[in-house]
């Protein structure tokens, strides 16, 4: 080691002699990667590779010899396509070095830019290597016009960039539906003397305080940013990654903070989460005032057991969840705060505190629940649920335009009260979407709004599901002696001939017969009322029961009528929905007498609602 130093010292002396300038020993450390500054001056420098982003116009980029900066030999040109262009949705790609470069001696990526019209270029940056992209740093909405202008992207902490492969990337979309052209030239890393030292920012540079933080609640430090003052005196904020930052919790027993900025509350007390960018303190902090164990359900929410094929889940541990933009939009006048916590170490639930109302948005990717029949969520509240306390669920569909307003929105709100709501118990809200009466479309659902008089609500298993109204098994096969049976509709017995199962009585019900598990079944879809006309008057006075099997998952009212000439009719109320599977009833014919003359039965009738499956309608002894 000593020898080494001596050698270096001699080398140092030689260098001093040769250059006439003082150099530091550290300058002589061999660089592992080339320190080349140029990315594109008059041509690509080094082993650069260009790759277009997926979905972009892959031919948007080219090197041109005209319209260059300062008459240089060549410039980069990006042709942004029109909206809906078959070529691609935008222009964008990354330029990366196959081997990597040592950029630790620079403090900014700079280039000149102009455009064929005044635009704000979507995003421009470096660090995108189509791989880990650990140090992606970018500025968004970069203003460009028809004059060449210099853009400076400060490097948050160049000492980390000793083998950086992502040297430049750009992405730009159409403006007002139309494409345009961007030129970039003199693209290089520089060590600008007139760039101020850079300051890291967490929590947008603000000192924020979270009071009442309960154990297991998690919070985010927010976007990682850094700000440097440009030679023009204005601050340039870059968006970057956690990999440049070192995060610290002042009291690790109260709150922990992960490398990527996820804060987890562990105990009561105070902890301040701060960050360093390199050696320097970043601006912004998050103070956690922990209150220890908060109220929470002792058990996990009842797990939904629907077939995954019949579910669109927004929040559950059972099904893959749709992307949700935010579980708390923090709309004006909303006091709601939310924490994401785990129950029993396995079940993720959302806890809303100070809930007056909270907006939940999924506008980026609206949910098409057209095929679904029900909305389900579990809630748990420690608050009083006696009347008039209530919990409200509002669903909002943004319509075909996919944005709020525009005249094609639809929404509907349901209010839930006791006895459904119970304090300190998981409550399953599972309602037919048809109950949201003014939700005329559910093809572009984009908002869910929760409100009511319960300040603390735990939420889980928020999902849409489809309840099939059709049985999967056949009705039970009756085993009566055929001599004792007058069958109207059954596969087991010979049916009375000439029965009209769909006489036109002005009903709305859609009638059909279809095999269910190979067994012919009578189906009433959307029942209001429905008659059955016998070919002739039947004498059933020697029979004891009207037997029928029925199945319905969505009916809330169902009556069957026996009708004799006159007509004279008497209803019998059936229990609906039918519960799990088929229900068989044997209705004593005495239920219909004496009004109905059992010697002259001419018709039957059902009324009520829902989808009804019927089989084995027969009179028996």
């Amino acid at each position, binding site marked *: 080691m000593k020898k080494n130093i001596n050698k270096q010292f001699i080398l140092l002396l030689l260098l001093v002699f040769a250059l006439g*300038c003082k150099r530091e020993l550290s300058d002589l450390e061999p660089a592992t990667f080339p320190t080349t500054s140029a990315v594109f001056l008059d041509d690509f420098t080094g082993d650069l590779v260009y790759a277009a982003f997926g979905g972009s116009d892959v031919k948007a980029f080219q090197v041109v010899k005209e319209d260059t900066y300062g008459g240089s030999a060549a410039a980069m040109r990006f042709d942004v396509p029109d909206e809906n262009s078959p070529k691609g949705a935008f222009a964008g790609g990354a330029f990366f070095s196959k081997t990597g470069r040592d950029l630790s001696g620079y403090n900014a990526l700079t280039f000149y830019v102009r455009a064929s019209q005044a635009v704000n270029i979507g995003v421009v940056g470096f660090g995108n290597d189509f791989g880990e992209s650990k140090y992606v740093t970018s500025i968004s909405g970069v203003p460009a016009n028809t004059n060449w202008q210099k853009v400076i992207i400060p490097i948050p902490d160049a000492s980390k960039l000793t083998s950086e492969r992502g040297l430049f990337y750009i992405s730009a979309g159409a403006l007002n539906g139309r494409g345009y052209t961007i030129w970039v030239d003199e693209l290089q890393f520089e060590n600008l003397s*007139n760039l*101020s030292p850079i300051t890291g920012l967490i929590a947008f540079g603000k000192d924020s305080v979270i009071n009442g933080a309960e154990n297991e609640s998690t919070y985010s430090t927010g976007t990682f940013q850094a700000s440097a*003052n440009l*030679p*023009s*005196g204005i*601050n340039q904020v870059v968006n970057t990654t956690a990999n440049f930052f070192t995060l610290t919790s002042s009291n690790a027993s109260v709150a922990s903070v992960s490398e990527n900025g996820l804060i987890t509350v562990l105990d009561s007390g105070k902890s301040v989460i701060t960050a360093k960018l390199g050696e320097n303190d970043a601006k912004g902090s998050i103070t956690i005032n922990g209150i220890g164990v908060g109220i929470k359900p002792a058990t996990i929410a009842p797990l939904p057991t629907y077939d995954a094929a019949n579910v669109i889940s927004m929040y559950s541990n059972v099904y893959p969840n749709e992307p949700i933009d935010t579980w708390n939009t923090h709309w004006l006048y909303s006091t709601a705060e939310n924490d994401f916590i785990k129950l029993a170490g396995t079940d993720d639930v959302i806890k809303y505190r100070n809930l007056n109302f909270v907006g939940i948005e999924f506008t980026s990717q609206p949910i098409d629940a057209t095929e679904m029949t029900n909305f389900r969520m579990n809630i748990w509240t420690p608050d009083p649920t006696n009347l008039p306390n209530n919990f409200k669920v509002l669903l909002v569909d943004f319509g075909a335009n996919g944005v709020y307003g525009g005249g094609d929105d639809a929404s509907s709100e349901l209010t839930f009260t006791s006895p459904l709501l119970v304090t300190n118990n998981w409550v399953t809200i599972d309602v037919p979407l048809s109950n949201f009466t003014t939700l005329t479309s559910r093809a572009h659902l984009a908002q869910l709004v929760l409100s009511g008089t319960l300040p603390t609500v735990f939420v889980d298993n928020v999902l849409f599901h489809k309840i099939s109204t059709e049985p999967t098994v056949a009705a039970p096969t009756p085993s009566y002696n055929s001599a004792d049976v007058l069958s109207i509709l059954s596969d087991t017995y010979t049916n009375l001939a000439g029965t009209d199962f769909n006489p036109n009585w002005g009903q709305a019900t859609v009638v059909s017969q279809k095999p269910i598990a190979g067994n012919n079944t009578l189906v009433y879809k959307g029942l209001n009322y429905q008659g059955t006309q016998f070919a002739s008057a039947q004498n059933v006075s020697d029979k004891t029961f009207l037997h029928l099997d029925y199945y319905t998952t969505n009916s809330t009212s169902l009556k069957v009528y026996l009708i004799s000439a006159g007509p004279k009719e008497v209803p019998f109320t059936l229990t609906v929905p039918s519960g799990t599977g088929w229900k068989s009833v044997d209705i004593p014919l005495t239920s219909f007498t004496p009004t109905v003359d059992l010697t002259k039965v001419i018709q039957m009738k059902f009324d009520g609602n829902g989808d009804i499956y019927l089989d084995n309608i027969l009179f028996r002894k």
Partner: protein
Amino acid sequence: MKNIKTDFNIKIALQSLLLISAVGLFASCKKESKQTLPERSYKLVWSDEFDGLEGTAPDDTNWTYDIGAGGWGNQELQYYSSSTDNVSHDGFGNLKITATNKGTGGAPFTSARIKTQGLFAKAYGRIEARLKTPSGPGIWPAFWMLGEDITTNPWPACGEIDIMELRGQEPYIINGTLHGPGYSGGNSVTKAYTLTDGRFDTDYHIYAVEWGVDYIDFFVDDYLYNRLTPADLAGDWVYNKPFFLIFNIAVGGTYVGFPTSGTSFPQSMVIDYVRVYDEQ
């Protein structure tokens, strides 16, 4: 902060500079180190070290205020106040003059302009301050002097010595300037000094003039970047009488242009000290 507050022996410093200059002939790395300066020695006669408690106003035995809006002859946008929001000690041995975008009195910005008028004035000697400038488009900090007879002998006849002024959109260039009868405003006699390896808003620098009967030398960090003598002026040499000191931050105006959406507020000039020496 304390170590830089130790009493400064300008003579030793200048001698050191000469020594560095000699070394510089061999090293030949820094062009400024070739400077050879006339040997002068000074003794401290007046200073404010700004050691007040945090949030306190500047010492009223040294400083008074210009207050109000109206552009101050340059279409400036600020309202000058005496509020400690705009000028106060920071508790770390500095005075902070702060320009804010919280308007008052019909002006969109507030700031401060403090001066020694009526309290202290000086002819000749070395006048220096160690400070960090603010920055940003439309921000115009200055450390300067006006002839004490300005009340009876209006500007520009009274004379003006600008030891440091800076346009916030170029936070690495300062100007040293003389305004007087026949050479004021756009026709003033000025010279810029540009930092090639840093900025005036990120580090402290020492701005000074050394002023004799027939010369005014302008320094940044003891580097002499301009000397003005009567022969350099298009009008009378009016610098044989006492001048008082001024520190201020203007916002907007004809010299600097207007703030943009990219100008961040508040912006502070942080002054470590101001010292006035007599030549021995």
